[in-house]
């Protein structure tokens, strides 16, 4: 069977596209001044991450990323944006002071990025033989969630339940009668 022509290049192009989505989304989320654009950047970043998870052999996590982040987290944050006035106020300090703080923040983040990237590129990582396809199946994740990790699974269900109840209590308790 001959492979599809240029399939290698198409796969590489799709990988680069998703990597660019993730990077551009994170940059938009961190840099834009309007909060609604930040939320859109977060959604774009999560779509890119879902693609990267797919390239990392895990379509299950790609689906979960879209479902939880794009479907739930971003929509919830947009509700929060609607219920408050989140746009950034005009900066109050002098221009030079703001520029100085911006430069300090940029330098710190550049140092973090370069340091960790160097660690990833130069570090000597133990390499295992790639696991077989049967170890990557969703069925295996399900079996493990209900056997080896059943306690953690129950605990995280409880955490989510308590978080929902706590969120309801906090949001309701602050309401004053007017």
């Amino acid at each position: 069977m001959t492979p599809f022509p240029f399939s290698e290049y198409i796969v590489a192009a799709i990988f680069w596209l998703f990597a660019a989505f993730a990077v551009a989304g994170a940059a938009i989320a961190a840099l834009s001044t309007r909060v609604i654009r930040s939320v859109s950047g977060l959604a774009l970043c999560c779509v890119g991450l879902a693609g990267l998870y797919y390239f990392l052999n895990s379509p299950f996590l790609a689906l979960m990323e879209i479902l939880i982040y794009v479907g739930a987290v971003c929509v919830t944050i947009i509700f929060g944006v609607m219920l408050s006035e989140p746009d950034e106020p005009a900066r109050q300090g002098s221009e030079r002071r703001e520029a100085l703080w911006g430069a300090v923040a940029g330098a710190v983040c550049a140092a973090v990025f370069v340091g960790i990237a160097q660690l990833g590129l130069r570090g000597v990582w133990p390499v295992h033989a790639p696991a077989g396809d049967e170890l990557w199946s969703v069925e295996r994740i399900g079996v493990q969630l209900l056997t080896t990790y059943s306690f953690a699974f129950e605990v995280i269900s409880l955490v989510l339940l308590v978080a929902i109840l706590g969120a309801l209590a906090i949001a309701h308790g602050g309401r004053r009668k007017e």
Partner: protein
Amino acid sequence: MNPIHLHESAAAYLVIAAFLLAAGIFGLIRRRTLIGMLISGEIIFSAAGLNFMAVNRFMAPDPSVGQIFVLFLMGIAAAEVAIALSIIIAVYRNYRSIHSTELSELNG
């Protein structure tokens, strides 16, 4: 490093995760509203998840452990967003503002 086969090397994913972490930290420092800071925190969570998955794909003997761990991470992040947003809305009701510079009642 061949750009065509980059998706088969761990380094590409680790560098992307490092960028996401740096962008998240920059946002946490520079954003001046609580919702902007929450979004930056989510990006840091995503960076951690991508790192876990990259290590899981290329260096772990049992690949289902990393996937389950990242799934738990997403659950924790979702719980965090729910709590944080309700706190933000409660703060907005009391102060009529969610700008971090104006929430300075405890500022000595």
